[in-house]
Every structure is written in structure tokens, then in C-alpha cells.
């Protein structure tokens, strides 16, 4: 008695009765092998659907639909500002990961070690100057793009029903983007960083009841030092990346579901 069941789905027998070339056979065997493990057939349907969406005739664009003579092409860059934010975010993430290899969040030493690390990146590291430049500029550009994206959403009324949730997610994303910039601004531990951090501590201390607690949590005390820098570092390279990436995915997922608000 064999363990192998013999039934109409005996793919081996099916393969044998077909007269296949070696290429076809290898392909099918691989497919069957993978399908047994990963249930590819279920996903194939999705792929097929995508294939047809791409290859069949394009649906009419809104300008064709409303017979607008493609009058509005010069507005398109405004509608791409959200995508610009995403792209700038990706560039910042990649360059930031590379910068992270050479940075140390430490205030130790006569000249703070973090500052020394930035100097070393700019002076000694091959391509390091450009790398820091790319990271700085992508961050600046992302923030600018996010602000402008918000303005375009506002002035085209795209936040109205049913898109309120996305507007609120957007406000949170805007705040987090600025927090991203702020924590990154503190990392080189230069004069600008230190005194910007000082303002942050004073702001949190001004709040009654939770202020001191906030200062302890975010800045590691009431005056700036090593605990501040390490907190900013963790926020900048660990906490915010996860939160912001997840929120962007949600934001764009909702846009994908709801469609872009008309009219253009």
C-alpha cells in the first residue's frame, strides 16, 4: 500500500501522458513544486488581473471623459506632489541608512563625537559629502513637498467627504515629517542643533502637569546632553521611520481605494 494517493489530480501521471519538451517539463515541474508549497495558483489570478489591466486598452482619462481638450496638463505637477513626498522620503531613507553606518550618537569628548563623525563623513568618507548633501536636501524637499501637497489638497477641496480621514492622517503625517526634520536637525550636535534642542526643552517645560514628564521622556532631562542626543537618534532612526512608513502606506492605500478627487 502506497502513501501516495491516486486521484484525478495526479499531476505526475498527467505530466507523463503529455509529450513535453524538456523546457516545458522543467517549467511545469517547478511550477507544481512551488504551487504545492506556496499555493501560487491563488495568486496567479491576481497577476492575471493585473496583466489585463496593463495590457488592455487604457480606460479614458478624465480629460477625455469630460472632453476637456487636455486643457489642464499644467496642473498635473500639483497632483504629483504627494508622489514627490514619497520619492523624497525614499531617497532620504536610503541615504540616511548609509549615513547611519558612519554616525555615532555621542556627545563625549572635547569636540562632541557626533560632530566629529559628521566632519569625518564630509571630509574623509568617499562620496560622504554628497551623501550628507543628498540626505539634507531630500529631507528639505520632502517637507516642502508635503506642505505644498497640503495646499493643493486644500485649494482643490479634495479633503471633503469622503476624504476627511485622509486629511487627518495627512495632518499627523505633516507633524511627524516636521518632527523627523527636528530630530535630524539635532543629530550633528552643532550650535544650531544644541540651541534648537534648548527651545524644545523650554517648550515642553512650559506645559503644566505633563511638561516635566515630557521633557524627561523626549529630551532625557531638563538640560541637554548625551541622553538628549540618544533619544533624538532613536526617534529619528527607529521610531519615526516605522510610524511614518506605516502611515504613508495607509494614506496612499486610502487614496488608491477612494480614487483622486475630481475635478482636476
Amino acid at each position, binding site marked *: 500500500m502506497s502513501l501516495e494517493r491516486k486521484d484525478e489530480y495526479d499531476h505526475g501521471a498527467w505530466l507523463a501522458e503529455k509529450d513535453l519538451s524538456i523546457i516545458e517539463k522543467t517549467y511545469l515541474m517547478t511550477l507544481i513544486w512551488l504551487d504545492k508549497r506556496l499555493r501560487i495558483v491563488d495568486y496567479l489570478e491576481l497577476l492575471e488581473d493585473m496583466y489585463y489591466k496593463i495590457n488592455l486598452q487604457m480606460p479614458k482619462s*478624465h480629460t477625455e471623459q469630460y472632453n476637456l481638450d487636455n486643457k489642464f496638463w499644467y496642473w*498635473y505637477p500639483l497632483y504629483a506632489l504627494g508622489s514627490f513626498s514619497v520619492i523624497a522620503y525614499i531617497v532620504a531613507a536610503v541615504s540616511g541608512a548609509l549615513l547611519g553606518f558612519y554616525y555615532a550618537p555621542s556627545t563625549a569628548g572635547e569636540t562632541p563625537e557626533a560632530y566629529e563623525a559628521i566632519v569625518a563623513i564630509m571630509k574623509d568618507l568617499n562620496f560622504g559629502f554628497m551623501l*550628507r548633501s*543628498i540626505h539634507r536636501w531630500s529631507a*528639505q524637499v520632502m517637507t516642502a513637498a508635503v506642505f505644498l501637497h497640503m495646499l493643493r489638497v486644500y*485649494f482643490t477641496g479634495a*479633503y471633503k467627504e469622503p476624504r476627511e480621514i485622509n486629511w487627518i492622517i495627512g495632518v499627523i503625517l505633516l507633524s511627524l515629517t516636521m518632527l523627523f526634520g527636528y530630530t535630524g536637525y539635532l543629530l550633528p*550636535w552643532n*550650535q544650531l542643533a544644541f540651541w534648537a534642542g534648548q527651545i524644545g526643552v523650554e*517648550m515642553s517645560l512650559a506645559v503644566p502637569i505633563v511638561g516635566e514628564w515630557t521633557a524627561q521622556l523626549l529630551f532625557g532631562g531638563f538640560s541637554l546632553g548625551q541622553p538628549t542626543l540618544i533619544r533624538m537618534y532613536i526617534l529619528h532612526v527607529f521610531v519615526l521611520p516605522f510610524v511614518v512608513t506605516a502611515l504613508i502606506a495607509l494614506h496612499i492605500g486610502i487614496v488608491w481605494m477612494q480614487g483622486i478627487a475630481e475635478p482636476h
Partner: protein
Amino acid sequence: MSDSDTNEPRTDGSGPGIVAPDDEVPTWRERKERTTGLSRLTYEYFERARREDQDLRQESSYVERDVLGFPAWPHETIRNLALASFFTGMLLFLAAMLPPHLGDPANPAETPSVILPDWYLYWSFGLLHLDPINPELAIVGGEKIMSDELYGVLANVVTVGAIAIVPFLNKGSARRPVEEPFWAAVGVGGVVFAFTMSILPIQDMFPWAVAITFDLAFFLPLVAAAITYAVLKTMREGYMYDLNRRYYRLRPPK
């Protein structure tokens, strides 16, 4: 070689635990109908919504679900990707042309003459400089109710909160600024306000009295808003006529 021949316990997960469904087994729907409490409510609502959708679809005048927006795929996405790749090139070019600056290392003993955050926080920094309008209460003997710092922090919270509730204040199906001159004016005023607030931290640097800068910071946004309102009101008639002719004839606004 079958398992039932031996009395050893089977650890492969097979056995009588899983029973093939027969006619007695409740369907998914029946299970749902039997639920109670919140899940019952959810089920009932979903059923109602589905029925509503179906009825709408079967109405003779009904063509398609009301269009909420243009699909993100393919036109929008492809166009955005094309523009964004060009934009990435511009970004790298910018990075190559304008290198970043690195000032002196941190020195707690020496306060620099100008303390500034990055540019995108200027407006927020400006809101921390509102102490001249921090109200004083006569009851408390002219004392300020809260510290100037707290007032600044609250100003930030209020600003972000105001932006967040916009969708709940401005409703309706109007989209273009000409359709709603008031809200366009609010927007323009807000943008100008962000700029004038950014000026506040350096208000001492102008060759005129500080009070003038401070007053201008609130006056200019109002002026900008008023101009926007006037211009849009003037443009409105002709523009709406054009819109009606080209656009709303095909998709009348609700």
C-alpha cells in the same frame, strides 16, 4: 500502513477533529445570523448596505455607483511616476550644487546671537513669540493667566487643530476656489500668516519699531484674504459660466 492499526497516539494533527461539512453544518451566513451583540449589529448593517447597493444598481436610471474620484491607476500613477523620476534627478542635482553647511560644535556656554530651527519650523517658532497678545486678567491683578511659553505652545496646538478640523467645517461638493471664495480667502490668509509668523522671531532686525512688524504680521494675512475674496468674487460669474458649460453640464454638482 495505516494509523488505525496501531494504538500509538497520533501527533500529525490528523484524526476525527475535522469533520467534512454536511447538510447539518451551519453556513457562514447562518452562523452570522445567530450572533448577538455588536457582531450581530455589524452583520445587520452590512446586510442592509449590501441590499441598498443592490437596489441602487437595479434602479433603471442608475448607471454606475456614483463616482467618488478618478482611479489612481493607471493614468494618475504613471503620470506621477514619470514626473517623480524627473524630480529625483532635480533633487540629486540640487544636492550636488548646494552642499550642506555644518556650523561650530555645540557649546552650552555660548549662546549664539541667532537661534533658529530649520525653515519649515519658522512659523511654529514665530508662534512662540506672541507674548504681546497673551491676555492679562484684571481679576488676577494684571497678572498673565499663563506663562508666555505656554501661550506659545497652545498657539501651536490651536493652529494644527484648526487645520485638522477643516473638513468638518467646510462641507459640500464645491471643489474649486472660485466656487467658494470665502474658503479660498481663508487658505490664502493662512499661507500668508505662516510667512508673517516666520518673520516674528527676527522682528528686532527691521529698521522700524517692533510693534509695527507685530501688527503687520496679523494685518497682512487679512489684507491678502480680502484681496483673494474680492478677486474670486469678481471672477466668479464668468468662470462658473465656463465651468457649467464645459464640466458640470456633464456632471452636475449635488
